[in-house]
Every structure is written in structure tokens, then in C-alpha cells.
């Protein structure tokens, strides 16, 4: 049981890192008023770009950096379409996901055979050795890849950026009311580009983590919907970094658990009263595929609850999300 829990937590941390990275980027993009549904495609680009460079150079960090750049390259397309050309953000995003899928399948076909040693798992300097000894969570949290630590570090940084820096304040303001921000001297177009590029970079990083640390392989379509979960996660978190962290672990735990639920029977002992009633229900609810719907259902419920509770006033969603900005001229 203890080994099961420790293994579960370890898998949770790994799954959560992907969601934290992609989700945090998406959160920053959306706070600036741009919805990016291309996360999945950008993650794939990051995964492949990072993988190829790591195979060629042997450097994980170089690969990670290139992964980020690949994500940003696709994000630039999205930014150009949505900010400069004021295209529909939804269509642009969906198409970038398709484009990212197609491009990575096309260029990645030669790399499917390759494999690398993943990012090494390390302990933190100085105190790491002791932290690992903590029962249950020690190994899971404190013997991880550098990117796991990085993701964890980025959450408070992201929070600090959005709430405690001038740039963050301006970024939030253009997601709320670009017209007002513009009259206050904030450069709406430049900052929206920045936000979309940050989001793309984070998505690329999430993808690179997936191929470099998580699997050590490149498989077409290897993100397997995690980009969409990241989009859902931002809504689930109601656009707050702290809740995003919680949500990422929650969704990560679900992900880890559903892959392991078979090995752990939660059914009641035969003969227990009502076992025949509860057991099929428990089996159904803990089925891996059924558990795969939970993040989406939870997000719909959170979204609906938030809207219904406030009757549409003062929602957490950035006011100007999905709205292209055009400066009023005479």
C-alpha cells in the first residue's frame, strides 16, 4: 500500500509538471485577453524540437531551450493572426493544433526509432538528501528532474509577475480593458504579442519535458490531449496561479491513479452488504477511461457554478478574453 501510494505520487508529480507548465503559459496568455487553443500543437512542436536537438547534441538543456523556441514559433503565428489580423481566436487556435500535429508527424517520422536517456533525476543541493527520506512524499517530490523543480518554481514566479510587477499589471489590464489600458499609455499590441509568446514558450517547455524527462521518446501525438487538459485547467483554476497548482496536482493525481487503478481493487468484499450494488458503481467510476472524463466534467461544473453564482457579474474570466482590440479612431 505504501509503495503503491509512493509510486502514485511520483507519477502525479511527473504528470503535474506538464500541466503546470502548459497551464501557466495558457493562464498568462488568457490574462492578457487571448485564448490559445493551440497549446496541444505547441506542445507537440516543443516535444519534437527538444527531442531532436537532444538526440543530436546530447544536451538536455539545449533541447529544452529549443523546445521552448518551437512552441514560441507556433505562438507567433497565433499572435499574428489574432492580434494583428484580428482573426477568430478559436479557429486560429484549433488550426494551430492541427498544424502542429501535422508538422510534427511529418518532420518527426524519422525520429520515432530514436530514444534518449531522460533528464536525470536529481535531489536538491544541501538538504536534498534529507528531504528524500521523508516518508511517502520524499522520493516523489524531492528526487525529480530539474524541469519538475523548475515548474514548481515558476508558479510563484508567475503569480509574482502578474500581481507584483509593472509589466504584469499592464498585461492584466489589457486582458481586462484594453481601451482603458491604451489611454493609460500601455502598449496593447506589443504586450499581447508578449503574452502569446510566453504562453507558446511554456507550452513548448511542457512538450519538451514530456519527451525529454517523462518518456525519453518521440511518438507522434504523444501529448495525448494534455494540451486540452491544460486549457481546461486554466478555467478550472479560475485564472489564478495558486489554484492552477492545486488543479494540476489534482488532475495529475487523477491521471496517475487511472493508470494504476487496475492494480488496486477498491471493490467491497463479496458478501458485504450492498456489495452487489456498490461494486459495479465503484468499478465504473474508477475505470481509467471514465476517470479520464473527470477533468473536463469538473471544469464544466466549475465554470457553470462560477457563472451561475455570480449571475454573470464579476467573473474570474478576463473581461476582454476573445476580443481583438482595435484602437478607436475618427
Amino acid at each position, binding site marked *: 500500500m505504501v509503495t503503491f501510494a509512493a509510486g502514485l505520487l511520483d507519477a502525479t508529480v511527473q504528470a503535474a509538471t506538464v500541466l503546470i507548465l502548459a497551464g501557466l503559459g495558457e493562464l498568462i496568455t488568457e490574462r492578457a485577453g487571448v485564448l490559445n487553443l493551440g497549446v496541444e500543437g505547441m506542445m507537440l512542436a516543443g516535444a519534437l524540437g527538444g527531442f531532436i536537438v537532444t538526440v543530436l547534441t546530447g544536451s538536455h538543456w539545449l533541447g529544452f531551450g529549443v523546445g521552448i523556441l518551437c512552441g514560441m514559433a507556433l505562438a507567433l503565428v497565433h499572435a499574428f493572426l489574432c492580434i494583428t489580423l484580428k482573426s477568430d481566436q478559436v479557429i486560429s487556435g484549433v488550426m494551430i493544433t492541427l498544424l502542429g500535429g501535422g508538422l510534427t508527424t511529418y518532420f518527426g517520422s524519422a525520429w520515432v526509432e530514436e530514444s534518449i536517456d531522460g533528464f536525470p533525476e536529481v535531489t536538491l543541493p544541501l538538504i536534498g538528501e534529507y528531504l528524500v527520506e521523508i516518508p511517502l512524499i520524499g522520493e516523489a517530490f524531492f528526487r525529480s528532474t530539474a524541469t519538475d523543480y523548475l515548474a514548481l518554481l515558476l508558479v510563484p514566479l508567475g503569480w509574482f509577475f502578474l500581481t507584483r*510587477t*509593472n509589466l504584469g*499589471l499592464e498585461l492584466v*489590464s489589457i486582458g481586462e480593458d484594453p481601451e482603458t*489600458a491604451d489611454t*493609460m499609455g*500601455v502598449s496593447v499590441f506589443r504586450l499581447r504579442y508578449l503574452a502569446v509568446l510566453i504562453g507558446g514558450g511554456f507550452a513548448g517547455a511542457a512538450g519538451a519535458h514530456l519527451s525529454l524527462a517523462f518518456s525519453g521518446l518521440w511518438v507522434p501525438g504523444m501529448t495525448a490531449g494534455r494540451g486540452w487538459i491544460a486549457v481546461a485547467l486554466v478555467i478550472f483554476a479560475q485564472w489564478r496561479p495558486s489554484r492552477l497548482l492545486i488543479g494540476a496536482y489534482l488532475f495529475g493525481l487523477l491521471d496517475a491513479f487511472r493508470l494504476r487503478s487496475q492494480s488496486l481493487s477498491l471493490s467491497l468484499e463479496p458478501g458485504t452488504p450492498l456489495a452487489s450494488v456498490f461494486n459495479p458503481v465503484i468499478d465504473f467510476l474508477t475505470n481509467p477511461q471514465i476517470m479520464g472524463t473527470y477533468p473536463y466534467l469538473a471544469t464544466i461544473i466549475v465554470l457553470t457554478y462560477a457563472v451561475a453564482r455570480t449571475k454573470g457579474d464579476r467573473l474570474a474570466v478576463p473581461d476582454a478574453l476573445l476580443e481583438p482590440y482595435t484602437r478607436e479612431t*475618427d
Partner: protein
Amino acid sequence: MADHAFLRMEDIYKEFPGVVANDHIDLSVNGGEIHGLLGENGAGKSTLMKILYGLYTPDSGEIYLGDDRLELDTPQDAIDAGIGMVHQHFKLIPRLTVAENVVLGQREPAATFRADNDDSRLPESIRNNRVVKSLAETFSLGLDAPEQRIQELADQYGFDIDVSANVADLDVGQQQRVEILKALYRDVDLLVLDEPTAVLSPTEADRLFDSLSRLADEGLSIIFITHKLGEVTAIADRVTVLREGRRVDTVPVAETTQADLAELMVGREVLFRIEKDDAAHGDPVLEASGLRADDDRGIESLSGLDLTVREGEVVGIAGVSGNGQTELAEALAGIRELTDGDLRIDGADLTGASPRAFVDAGVSFVPEDRLRYGCAEELSVLHNAGMKAYREDRFADGPLLDYDELGRYAESLVEDFDIRGVSDVTDIDAGDLSGGNLQKLILARELDRDPDLLIANQPTRGVDVGAIEFIREAILEQREQGTGVVLLSEDLDEITDLSDRILVIYEGEFVYETTPENADRERLGIEMTGGRVADEPADAVNSPEAVAPTAATDGAESTDSTADVAAAGDGD
């Protein structure tokens, strides 16, 4: 005359397609002066101020502030020059705090990095390093020092504001004070307030006047846009009156009376004289009692109105925009929810009924905001002509809608109402029509239904001269056929020419009733603007429980997209 003036706007000319919004206007404001800018909707006040704030570029004319000639291309230029503006629709971000709203765009670094912080642990040389400075301004944010300064400003002028509160948690009066603080924080020398009392209750308005006087005493120049006479006489030193894009006069307040100002503002010339016959008034078609309703922001804007309209009677409702007309018209058309009161059409209780029930009961509606409620711009003339008629049996072709018949119907409306610019009813969109022709189309659609009750809100606003006459004739024709008409207009001539009975609405209440025969323009002008009349008890005009309504709905803003409406409705 303006040699010693602080601000001089000289010979400002601005034309929108089809409309001259500012026709060679001069305006001068002295240092430390509160200057009233008075005029009806569409007089050109807002256009002039948008030019001053860099939102519009004038076609010709010059602006001087102090000794400098200003080139204002963006609001930022105006801010840099020391001009601040408090818009009617606040430019505040509700989710941010007061301090964050004030410093947005100012790039205040964290305390450690501030050049003026003597307690900082960082040596001054590092703080003054350009790279460090720019990094600190980008990647840190210090609110302590700004909050302190904002608090000082607030205290100085008697604003009770919690600088760390979210703007969303403040009431409108406080939000307005935040707007003023924003300007003060940027050390403005000239502050423009666009109809600042429109969103305030009378007590809040008094507090605002108090603060403005103190600001002026400190040497700040203030331009105060309004269409309420009482406010001008209460606070301004001088007042400039605009009418139809021209400056009528600039007078010291001490040397004038409210009656003089009303005359200057409303004017005397009468555009049209329409002969109307006496019509017999029949049974009541509309009986409304105790109507209460909120505006889009949830502020009460109808405070218990009673209104009865009989067959063949035109009841004109005069008032300056923003006193509840929009909400009244919408409530009578069934598209604004009542918070209290009863509404009967032809004797049937329609309180709380759906918009469809009002349509079916024979209520026709000519909305003030044509583009929002009156039509679908991107759809054809056929669609817009048939917007209500499509349900009628004559257009049914089995289970299908007979578009051919609908087309013929639209063509007949185009013909009968002389709607120009429609070569093909299926090919021309409503948005392609000029303001006047679009209004004729809407009127045609609403009148052709042979309504029992017609609600017409500003039916001739932004409409060309030829169409105005046509529309007024059509309304009178409808009256002769026994339709009860509620005519809401800011145009006094229109009201006196068409109405059988005149009611003046002010702050959501009817404050005065008269007939065209007995109507005295000056008296009407004073009542509309909340002015005091000697023989009238003061509380009839300025009821204490009345909450001031807002001047414009959000929808009115959307009309700005079309130039002619934007110019005509620039009072928003």
C-alpha cells in the same frame, strides 16, 4: 479676449460625414477657473472635448495650453501636456485596486529601487543605473509610496477612499473620485469632467462640487460638461453654451440667469410648423402606474411613473437625455424589466409579460438606438422590414415563409415611405442606408402594423432635414387613425408641435405637465434641466429620494460606429 487664458482652443472645426460637429468653435479657460460647457445632446460638447483629449483630430483649429501650442494625436499626448479627463464611462479596471488603477502605465518601481527612497539598502549609484532602473520599472511594482501619495491627495480634497480596495467594491461616486485621483496623480493642470453628475445622487453631486471648488482654489482649471442648468449656476465661474456645433456665447455665471441660459441652450428658432387637427381622444390604450425600473447598471432610473395615453392622443415626454427616457421607452415596449408598477395595454395586464406579448398586443416601438434595437445592420432591407410581420398569416406559405410576398411587402414599405437608396430589398442591407432612410424603414415597419400604441424615442435624432418632416407627418397621421403615441424627444419643437399633452421627465420622475398651447419654452427648458422656478416648491423638482439616472446606456455607445449618429449623438 483670450490673451490671458490658460487654455485656448481656437477656431476648432470638425466634420463627420454629413454632419459638422464643431463649427469653428473658440473656447478659453482661465487658470483656476471652473468653466461650464453647456449644450443639448448633439451640440458638439463631447466632440470638442475628445479633440482636447487627443481622441479626435480636428480638421482645422489650434489648441494652446499656457504658452505652448499642442499637437494632440493620442490621449497620451494630452496626459503629457497636463490635461486630465474624467469620462462619463469610467476608464477603470474593476478587478484592480484603486492604487493599481491610478499607477497603471506609470511604471512605479518597488521601494528599494526608488530614486527618492533614502532608506533604501541599495546605494544610490546602483539605483540610478539605467539598466537597473529599467529592470526595476518593468519587473517590480512598488505601491507603498504611490499609495501614500494617493492617500495624501485624497485627504487633501476630502475624498474618502481606501486605496487598497478593489475598484469593483466601490460605489459610483467613489469610482469617480478615483478617476479624479488618477488625473491629479499625473499632476494635471486642466481637468475635464464629462457630465460628472449623471451617475451621482444629489448628495454625491454636492460632495463633488465641494471637491471641485477646492481643486480650483488650488489653481487647477476645470471644464465641466453638463446639460443641467442648476449645476452650472451652482459651481461654474463662466459658461460657454454650444448649440448645433456652434458656440452661442460665453458668459460669466454671475451675470446671467438660468432662464437666459435655457434660452441660449435650447434656442428659439422653430424649424417646422405642422398643422394638426384636433383629434378626439378615445379609450385609454396605455395605463401605467407606479413604474419603477433600473438602468443597465442596476441604478434605479424610473422612480414611480404614472402615465395614461388615450386613443388618438400624442403624449410628448420632454427631457434632457439620461433622465429615464430610454428606460421608460423600453419598459413600455416590454423589453425592460419593471422592478415595480403595473402596465396595461388596451385594458389587458401586461406587467412582466414577454416582449412578444407586447408586440402581439399592438405595441410598436421606434427605439432611440436604431442599430442596437431597431434593426440588424448586416441583414437585408427585406429582413428588417419583416422583422415583426413575418409571423403574420399572409406571409405563410404552408409551413414555409413566403419570401416573395415578404419582398413585395418590403417594396411597398420602401415605396410608401419614400425610403431612398434601396435598389433591391434583398440586396441592400439595413446598414447600407443613411440614418434618415433607416429610420424611415423602421417607422414604416412599426406603423404599417397599425399599432394601438406607438412608442417613439428620439424618432428624428441624427436624421436629415427632409426625413424629419416626413417622420413627424407620419406620426401625426397615425394619431388621426386613433393610435395612442408616446413621443420621447429632447427636441422641444418636436414635442410642442406634435403633442396633445406634454410631460417633463427629470431624474426618473414627471416633474411638470402642460399642453402645447400653454407651453412656455423657457419654463420647459428650466424644468428639463432641473432648474429652480421661483413659484414652484423646490422638492417637486429635486425630490430627495430620487436617484440620478445615468445619461446613456451602453447601447448608445455602439451607435458611434456610424459617423452620422456618432456626431449627432455625441453628447454621450
